[in-house]
């Protein structure tokens, strides 16, 4: 399954074309099946991302990685957009940066991110993004929803107060571990990740206890038990290797 017909088209019979184009005034060259995000990063140009994670299928949902392309009115998510010959990409225009900030601020208002008492304090991708984007405070009113913590699993717990709905957990569990324990329930602002058919994680019959979801979770939403404030450091080194060995190479199940 393919997310995009131009992804993974490379083979001996069908080598991918090399393209030249510009990212932030710099001339770069890349294969046609590499996303703008990946080309930018290879060239040392950083673009903030949240739902993207190397080793998992793309989702194009957090919208933090949007970039401007000259001649295109729409802003394009760089993780799922592919370059064209002579494209001119601007990764950090004033407009794009201000939108990124606003999106991140909205994410902060959505749940109860009380960093001071979080296991991931200091090791959180959401916090880091706020620093990277220079967010000193959130301009929109916090929503303070009432959400649960499920600590029924013997080794892990999920705190919905800190979930940003990136769905990395869903993807890693499905694509790499092959268990598909996680999924998402509800829609819109009431969306929530669930284990099995909304059963307590501890009673899940599909979870193998591998812990991959915990390691890929960008925030303190998923954590190992026994960790106190700021102690939860995530390890993701396994991901690229496992993706190569057992991931669905061309995943078209955008979650």
């Amino acid at each position: 399954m393919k997310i995009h017909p131009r992804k993974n088209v490379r083979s001996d019979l069908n080598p991918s074309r090399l393209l030249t184009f510009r990212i932030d005034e710099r001339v770069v060259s890349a294969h046609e099946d590499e996303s703008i995000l990946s080309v930018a990063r290879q060239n040392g140009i950083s673009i903030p991302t949240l739902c993207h994670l190397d080793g998992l299928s793309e989702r194009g949902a957090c919208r933090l990685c949007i970039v401007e392309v000259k001649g295109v009115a729409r802003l394009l998510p760089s993780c799922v957009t592919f370059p064209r010959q002579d494209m001119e990409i601007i990764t950090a225009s004033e407009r794009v940066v201000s939108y990124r900030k606003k999106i991140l601020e909205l994410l902060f208002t959505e749940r109860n991110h009380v960093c001071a008492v979080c296991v991931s304090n200091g090791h959180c991708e959401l916090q880091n993004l706020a620093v990277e984007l220079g967010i000193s405070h959130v301009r929109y009113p916090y929503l303070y929803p009432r959400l649960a913590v499920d600590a029924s699993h013997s080794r892990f717990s999920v705190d919905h107060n800190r979930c940003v709905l990136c769905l990395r957990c869903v993807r890693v569990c499905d694509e790499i571990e092959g268990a598909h324990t996680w999924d998402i329930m509800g829609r819109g602002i009431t969306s929530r990740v669930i284990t099995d058919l909304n059963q307590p994680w501890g009673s899940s019959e599909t979870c193998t206890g591998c812990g991959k979801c915990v390691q890929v979770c960008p925030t303190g939403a998923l954590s190992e038990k026994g960790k106190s404030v700021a102690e939860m450091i995530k390890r993701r080194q396994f991901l690229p290797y496992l993706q190569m060995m057992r991931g669905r190479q061309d995943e078209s199940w955008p979650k």
Partner: protein
Amino acid sequence: MNIEDLHQIARIEKSKQEGFQHQIHVCVAAGCLSCGSGQLKEALEKEIARRGLDTWCRVKGVGCLGLCTAGPLLSLETAGIFYQGVKVSDVSDILEALGGAPVERLICPVNSAFFRRQVRIVLENCGRIDPERIEEYMAESGYGGLALAVSQMSPTEVIEEVSRSGLRGRGGAGFPTGLKWTSVAKASGLTKFVICNADEGDPGAFMDRSVLESDPHRVIEGMAIAGYATGASQGYIYVRAEYPLAVKRVRLALFQAERMGVLGNNIFNTSFSFNIKVRLGAGAFVCGEETALIASIEGRMGRPRPRPPFPAEFGLWEHPTLINNVETFANVPPLIRKGGRWFAGLGTEKSKGTKVFALAGKIMNTGLIEVPMGTSLRDIVFDIGGGIPRGKEFKAVQTGGPSGGCIPGQFLDMPVDYDSLAKVGSIMGSGGMIVMDESSCMVDVARFFMEFCMSESCGKCAPCRVGTRQIYDILCRITGNLSGPDDLAMLEDLCDLMKSTSLCGLGQSAPNPVLTTLRYFRDDYLSHIHDKRCLAGACKAAREVA
């Protein structure tokens, strides 16, 4: 079945109908059924049988007659008389009056602008044929377009004809249909699909439902022609489960079409084969979005995915897929029969043909109408729609549902077509038209639509998931007279964010009702914010404070 058979069936059906001196058409579409047209039809049949009139008078259930406010509706086809608000107790009067002077008290003025000003292509058979009998459709040249296409035209010629007509998608965005068909036809792959989008999720819209309930074969024929043109052999009709009657009639129509051989293998003795399946949607607005709809047919959650790739290239089960709206397909058979040039003769420069609108809200004639593109809003609202009831002032008309905008009086003389609507910040959408009078507070209207978008947002992308909620909260604060000084700026800021960064059309267009009301009815907002007063006197909290 070959073409001769088709003509034969049509001839037999015609002569059978001519055998009846009187044909009483009772509307059995959802609107009239809900006010008792089913019982009415039964009573008429019984009474006719009792009186032994059944050799020269026939009762027929037909699709929507249009003027839904006045239901149950009944038309005497041969005499050209419409009766409105008919009750079972009127049955004997009606039968007695057959052939003589009509029953005065029931007469619905057919000469009124409501009927006179309409031009019916999509709805040409609505209210005239029995949607549950394929023979009646065939008697009205039904499946003639398909026969013509498969036996005398090449797929390219069919597409050229569609392109020549200038037909644009009726599902909302108005994408040129010929162009879409071309890209599906050109896409590489042996397996292709045709999908009919009958999800129709906008509040207040019931055009697609009416077409499916009143003339399902027209849509089936359009899909088959599209299949022939693009090289697809399998079609899907994705219809919401909340339309049980439409589902039932579509299923029946498919069954009949297969039995007659106008669907299936070797249609009209050619090598062309085409089948159609029905898929039911559970009624999520976002499932009308094409990529979400495809996901839903595949058995996954109805959530959009980023485009490109577009379905034309990469659609259902990764195969090239043509997806068009019900009304788009319904335009195709007559277009093929009569030629693209004929179709292009209707409408405006850039918007060809007609458009079906569902008139609702503060308007005399609530119902379904079909008018040529370019008809002015004034004609639609005041002439065809009969104006605003109870002598109230017109305030705005909302087009395009939750993705559209509110258009003020100053644009009443604007021609209704894709481009003019876009120019004033609204969209054609699928054709819902909600009229508002002076007693409507436009902030409250914006709040209503934002509430809809908030609860229908799929939640995939952050700007829409959280943005709809934040905007909704602000609109609640404003209508509740609790807003702070920065709320208006924040409102505009969030609307801009959602428009520019949301993943799919739902999020990108959800701010439209807010933006247009801010543009044209800013006083409604300012009065709430500064004077803590609702200008229209509509918002409850506001009245309490005042």
